Each structure stands twice: as structure tokens, then as C-alpha cells.
């Protein structure tokens, strides 16, 4: 054996670190903007590029994929090299990974405000960007596995298993959730429709939380926490048990996002059962982290990085206790669609992801710059203002969630809805939304102070771009020499590829059990003969609904509760969504559900409401959409869209594409003529006409009386 000299690449770690900080501040700033839009509609700034519907996905994408994403790569690139005693496989791949990821983020910043969106939550980016994500993810994978192959440490530490599971699962999730049929360069339709699309989306959405926001962070926790506390992890056995259980169970839990919807009951129950079980492996991780600090709690008082880690682990524990509780149908019935869910995710995002990232940044930047942190006092200030920010964020949101969830369900002794007007429940929680924005602002202030503190630290020190290290070269092992080496996990720890395949099998089981019957057994999605495909104009209107991000505030699925059927109408059936590519059920009701909006109001009502929502609903916090009235509807792709729908199995009659334009025009003129009766002069080729057509169609297929109220009545 010979001692080899090599260097660790700190420059790439630094680059990802800076990107984490910059995108973090930007993402949080956009978050603060959307938070303020919910109590001050003027903050939508009167133009289409900054309305809530378009900006909210920008916030979620920025904090998840830009802030957390860059933080993951920072943590992985730092810890992987040291745990494997090897430099990253390729400098070129590292750089392609870094710049490619930043380009993807920039493309999101450009396309989302333009309304270029697929509408799948946390996967809004259109297909060319999806392909770019896949390529860059593969680059990351090659770089990681290349490093693993040329390692100088035989066994893979538990953190690396989490990184491998992250890599393989995100790849599977991203690819399956991106099955889209492109119509043009920046427009596509999802291959799956309705219930099936919903199942795929929430299988993805839930596991993006699991394998982007959780497993890589657990891996980072298992490396950085022992380093910070200078003691080994509490129980290595527990880490193995909780790793395998976590990745096995997590993948099943997606349907808890679809409780009481028209997803088959057995799939919902599977989601509930596995969500409840999920508390065990999640708490296994939290307990393992917190107990690593046994006998070192005195250090927590002194060391700000450990303070951040302790709050992060506590927030992780709280969020993962709450998740299973929210999956119980009785609790979900009140919490779903309310701010309770927003509070839940932000305990995870601000507490777990945010604080763990800050802790690592405060520990790592001084080390790669060979200096001490510029100011411990400022870091301590960041810790306290950040903690206060989380409390000011979460508590009002819980309050708002309980309040609104219960108000929606309250009946008078006479059996009528006590708050029949949805807006009453929205206005009730405005003070809570103001407090939430204050919480967010405090948290952001902390992040800005950190930026200053770390910038000063970087200026004070000097980056050790290539840190020197030495280790013994790895010798080839003949397995039968040592009987203990035959144990399968020890073999797995040495065979990363087999490890990857095994973890992939483990994560595939749950998804397959849930999806295959839903996709193949017809009785799971019963069809309804009166449900017909959308007309060309309605289809264009639906695409405008997607473009404006209406789904961010309005659901399209009525749950079978009396409080909902009284308020909105007949509950939603699986067969009603069979032509919905993509599904638009939504996950939050900032405004009322829209599934039965069709025929409820006149065309004129919708026209006036879109022009100025407060004219129809005084006090409404919905932003006005005047551009829909002035902008001409783009019908250049209508024919292509009809053809694409035909390809996806929507039963338009043969050669329907040839008459699509004429049909569109005919229906648009009828709506314009109806509006004229109410003295509304609008050209029939404007966007508003298509949107009205879609809104008036929604949920009417199973109604006996499908006529729309004339606008002059």
C-alpha cells in the first residue's frame, strides 16, 4: 500500500455555496412578495408578469430547486470528497453541473412569469427545461459515481447511501412526471389525464419532498453534525434501519395529497396507512441526530452552528409528526386546502432545510477560507431572528388554517351554511396573513445578515481552492479472505452500483402497487357517457387558465362533504376528468373551488369579475386581469392542440382538426353576442372570451340543465 497525495476541490463547493445564498435571498424575497399579495392585492403590481398565479410557482421553484438544490450540491461535493478520500471525479463535469443548474434556474425565472408552465406543482417548468434538468442530473450522477469508483475508502458511509438514493429516486420521479407530448417549443400536454395524472403528480410531489428536501439533508446531517459536535453518530445501526425503512415507506405516501378526491378508495387508504407508518423512520433520523449531541449539549450553548442544527432537527421532528397526522382522513378533511398545509410545509422548509443549510454554511465557509467567522454575534442574531421568523410565520398560519377550515364547515341550526359567501372566510384571516408576512420578513432579514457575515468572512480569508490531502490507495479485496466481508450490507457498502439498483427496486415497489391498478383496471376510473371533450375554444380557455396559474388559488375537486356539496354543488367524480390533460385539482383554496362554476353566473358576471374582481365580490383579494380583455387569443396552435389531444386518446371525431378553427370562431361569436346584450362591447377574438367559455363549461357535463344564464338577466 502506498500513501497517495491528492487535493479536494473546494472551489466548486464555494461556488454552490454562493449560489445557495444568492438564490436563497431571491427566493425568500419573492416569497415575501406573494405573501403580501394575499392581503394587499395592489402588490400584484397591475401587470400580468407579477400576479400571484405566476409568481407563486417562481417562489416555490426558487426555494426548492435553487436554494435547497444548490445547498445539496454544496453539501454533497464537500462531504463526498472527504468521505471517499478522493477529489471529485471530473472538474469539467463539476463545472458543467454548476453552470447548467444555474442556467436552468435562470430559465425558470424567465419562463414562469411569462406564464409558460405545465401546471404540475413543483414541476412547472416546460419540457425543454425538463430535458435540461435530466441531462444536468445525469452529469451530477456521473460525477458522483465516478468519485465513488476512484475512492480511497472501501466502505460507503451512511451519508453516501442517502446521496445515492436521492440521485436515483429523483431521476425516476422526474422522468415519469415529465411524460409530456410537446405541441410547440414551450407548450406541451401531459400524457396522463385526470385521476391518473393526479396520482402521478402527487407521487412525484410528495417524493420530491422526500428525496429532494429530506434524504440529501439527512445525508448532510449524518456528515456535518458529527463533524460539528466532534463525535460519531449516536447509532449507526439505527441509521441503517431508518434509511431502508424511510426510502421504502416514503414512496407509498403520495395519495395522502388526494384524500376525499375521486382517486380510488383503496389507493387513498394505502397512502394513509403508509403515511402513518412513516413517522417511525422519520423520527429514527431525528432521534439519531439529536442523540448524537449526547454529552455535548454544553457545546450547543456556545456554538451557533449546532444551534441551527438542533432547531433544524426539531423542526424536522415536528413536521414529520404532523405529516402522518394530516394524513388521517378526519384531520385532512379540515386541514386540506387551508393555510394549515402552508404552515406545515414552512416548518419543514424554514426550520429543517433553511436552518440546516445556514448551520452548514456557517461551519463550512470559514473552513474552506481558512479563517474564523467574521462575526459570531451576527450569526447568533441570525439564529434568533430566524427562529422568531419561523414562529411568526407558522403560528398565524396554523390559526388561519383552523379558522378557515372550520368556517367552511359551519352550519346554522337551520341547516344552512353559516358562511355561505366564501369571501367572508378569506377576509377573516387577513390579519393572520399580515403576521405571516412579518414572520417571513424577519426570516429574510436573518438571511441577509448571514449574507453580509459570510461575505465579510470570505473577504477576510483566502479560498483554499485545492485542499491538500493524503490517503492510502485502495487495494483490491478478495471477498473470501475475510468471512465477515460476505455479509450483504458490507458487500453493498463496497458495491455502489448494486446498492443503487437495490435502492431503486425498493423505491419502485410502492409506486408500482399504486399506479399499475389505477392505470390498467377500468373500474378504478369509471367513465361517464355524458362527459365530452372540450370544444376548441374551451381548450384554449383552459390553457389560459393554466397560463395564469389559476390553479394556485382555486381547486377543481369537490369533496363528498355536505359542507362542500352545499357550497359548490355535486361532488367530483373520476369520470369527469378523463379528458383533463393535465388535471387541475389544485392543492389550496385561497379562493373558492371552481369545479361547478359552469352555468353558475352569466358571461357578463365573469367578464366584469376578471376585469375587476371587487366589482362583483367587494373586498376580494383576487388581482384584476384586464389584459385578458385587450390581448388577442393566439389560435395558431389550436389545430395542433386538437391533434395532440387526439393522439392522447381524446375522442374528437375524425378530421375534427379541420373544422376546429371555425368551431372556435362560432362559439366565440356567440359569447361576444351574449355579452353585447349586457352592453359589453368586446371583440370575439380576445382571450377573455376563451376563458369565459372554459369557466362556463366546467363541471357541467353531468348537470341536467346545462344552459348558461343569459347576460341580460
Amino acid at each position: 500500500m502506498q500513501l497517495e497525495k491528492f487535493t479536494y476541490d473546494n472551489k466548486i463547493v464555494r461556488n454552490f455555496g454562493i449560489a445557495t445564498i444568492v438564490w436563497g435571498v431571491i427566493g425568500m424575497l419573492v416569497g415575501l412578495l406573494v405573501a403580501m399579495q394575499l392581503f394587499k392585492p395592489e402588490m400584484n403590481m397591475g401587470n400580468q408578469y407579477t400576479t400571484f398565479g405566476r409568481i407563486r410557482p417562481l417562489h416555490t421553484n426558487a426555494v426548492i430547486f435553487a436554494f435547497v438544490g444548490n445547498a445539496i450540491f454544496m453539501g454533497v461535493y464537500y462531504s463526498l470528497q472527504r468521505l471517499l478520500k478522493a477529489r471529485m471525479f471530473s472538474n469539467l463535469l463539476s463545472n458543467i453541473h454548476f453552470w447548467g443548474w444555474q442556467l436552468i434556474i435562470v430559465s425558470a425565472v424567465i419562463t414562469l412569469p411569462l406564464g409558460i408552465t405545465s401546471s404540475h406543482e413543483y414541476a412547472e417548468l416546460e419540457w425543454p427545461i425538463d430535458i435540461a434538468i435530466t441531462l444536468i442530473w445525469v452529469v451530477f450522477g456521473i460525477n458522483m459515481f465516478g468519485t465513488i469508483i476512484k475512492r480511497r475508502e472501501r466502505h460507503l458511509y451512511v451519508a453516501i447511501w442517502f446521496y445515492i438514493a436521492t440521485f436515483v429516486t429523483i431521476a425516476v420521479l422526474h422522468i415519469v412526471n415529465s411524460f409530456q407530448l410537446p405541441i410547440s417549443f414551450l407548450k406541451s400536454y401531459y400524457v396522463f389525464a385526470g385521476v391518473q395524472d393526479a396520482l402521478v403528480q402527487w407521487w412525484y410531489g410528495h417524493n420530491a419532498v422526500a428525496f429532494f428536501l429530506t434524504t440529501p439533508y439527512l445525508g448532510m446531517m449524518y456528515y456535518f453534525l458529527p463533524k460539528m459536535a466532534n463525535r460519531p453518530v449516536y447509532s449507526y445501526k439505527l441509521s441503517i434501519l431508518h434509511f431502508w425503512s424511510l426510502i421504502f415507506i416514503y414512496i407509498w405516501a403520495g395519495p395522502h395529497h388526494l384524500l376525499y378526491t375521486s382517486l380510488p378508495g383503496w389507493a387513498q387508504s394505502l397512502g394513509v396507512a403508509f403515511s402513518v407508518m412513516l413517522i417511525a423512520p422519520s423520527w429514527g433520523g431525528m432521534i439519531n441526530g439529536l442523540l448524537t449531541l449526547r454529552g455535548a449539549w454544553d457545546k450547543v450553548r456556545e456554538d451557533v452552528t449546532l444551534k441551527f442544527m438542533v432547531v433544524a432537527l426539531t423542526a424536522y421532528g415536528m413536521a414529520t409528526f404532523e405529516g402522518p397526522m394530516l394524513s388521517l382522513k378526519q384531520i385532512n378533511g379540515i386541514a386540506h386546502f387551508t393555510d394549515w398545509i402552508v404552515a406545515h410545509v414552512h416548518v419543514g422548509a424554514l426550520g429543517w432545510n433553511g436552518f440546516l443549510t445556514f448551520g452548514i454554511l456557517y461551519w463550512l465557509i470559514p473552513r474552506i477560507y481558512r479563517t474564523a467567522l467574521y462575526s459570531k454575534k451576527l450569526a447568533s442574531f441570525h439564529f434568533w431572528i430566524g427562529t422568531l421568523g419561523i414562529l411568526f410565520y407558522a403560528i398565524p398560519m396554523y390559526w388561519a388554517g383552523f379558522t378557515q377550515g372550520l368556517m367552511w364547515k359551519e352550519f346554522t341550526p337551520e341547516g344552512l351554511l353559516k358562511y355561505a359567501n366564501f369571501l367572508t372566510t378569506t377576509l377573516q384571516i387577513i390579519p393572520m396573513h399580515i403576521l405571516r408576512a412579518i414572520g417571513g420578513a424577519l426570516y429574510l432579514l436573518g438571511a441577509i445578515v448571514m449574507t453580509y457575515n459570510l461575505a465579510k468572512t470570505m473577504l477576510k480569508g483566502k479560498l483554499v481552492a485545492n485542499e491538500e490531502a493524503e490517503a492510502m490507495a485502495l487495494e483490491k479485496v478478495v471477498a473470501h479472505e475475510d468471512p465477515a466481508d460476505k455479509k450483504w450490507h458490507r458487500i453493498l457498502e463496497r458495491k455502489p452500483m448494486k446498492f443503487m439498483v437495490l435502492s431503486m427496486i425498493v423505491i419502485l415497489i410502492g409506486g408500482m402497487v399504486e399506479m399499475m391498478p389505477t392505470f390498467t383496471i377500468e373500474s378504478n376510473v369509471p367513465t361517464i357517457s355524458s362527459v365530452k371533450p372540450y370544444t376548441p375554444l374551451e381548450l384554449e380557455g383552459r390553457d389560459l387558465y393554466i397560463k395564469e396559474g389559476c390553479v394556485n388559488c382555486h381547486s377543481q375537486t369537490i369533496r363528498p362533504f355536505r359542507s362542500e356539496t352545499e357550497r359548490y354543488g355535486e361532488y367530483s367524480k373520476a369520470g369527469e376528468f378523463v379528458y383533463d390533460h393535465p388535471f387541475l385539482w389544485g392543492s389550496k383554496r385561497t379562493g373558492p373551488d371552481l369545479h361547478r362554476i359552469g352555468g353558475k353566473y352569466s358571461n357578463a358576471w365573469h367578464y366584469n369579475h376578471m376585469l375587476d374582481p371587487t366589482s362583483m365580490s367587494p373586498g376580494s383579494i383576487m388581482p384584476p386581469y384586464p389584459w385578458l380583455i385587450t390581448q388577442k387569443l393566439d389560435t395558431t396552435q389550436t389545430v395542433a392542440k386538437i391533434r395532440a389531444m387526439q393522439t392522447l386518446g381524446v375522442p374528437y371525431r375524425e378530421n375534427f382538426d379541420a373544422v376546429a378553427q371555425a368551431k372556435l370562431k362560432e362559439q366565440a361569436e356567440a359569447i361576444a353576442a351574449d355579452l353585447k346584450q349586457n352592453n359589453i362591447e368586446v371583440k370575439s377574438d380576445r382571450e377573455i372570451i376563451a376563458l369565459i367559455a372554459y369557466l362556463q363549461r366546467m363541471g357541467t357535463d353531468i348537470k341536467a340543465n346545462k344552459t348558461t344564464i343569459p347576460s341580460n338577466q
Partner: protein
Amino acid sequence: MFKQIKDLAGGEFYLIASLLIFMVFFIMVGIYLIKMNKTHIVEMSNLPINEPQPNEYEEV
């Protein structure tokens, strides 16, 4: 609370089969853990803290 898991109108098969799959998986991991070599565990858990730490610049 258990009604939603008990009454599935024909869907019980999925639930029972899934739980069985998990139980088998969990027991396998459990058996492996019990049989694990103790010295190897100590060696593995010390991996992150064994390498030298450049923290001499940190103020105490």
C-alpha cells in the same frame, strides 16, 4: 379512525399485500442489523471524524 383502513369494499387485497411486503422487508433489515459486526459499526460511524479537521483557525 380504523374504519377507513378496514372497510375498503374489495380493496383490502392491496393493503394486506403491501403491509406484508413491508413486514418481510423490515424483518430482513432487522435480521441483518442483529448480525452486524460490532467493530465494523464503530469503524463506520467514526468515518467522518477520523479525517483531520482544518479548524485551527476557529476562535475558541
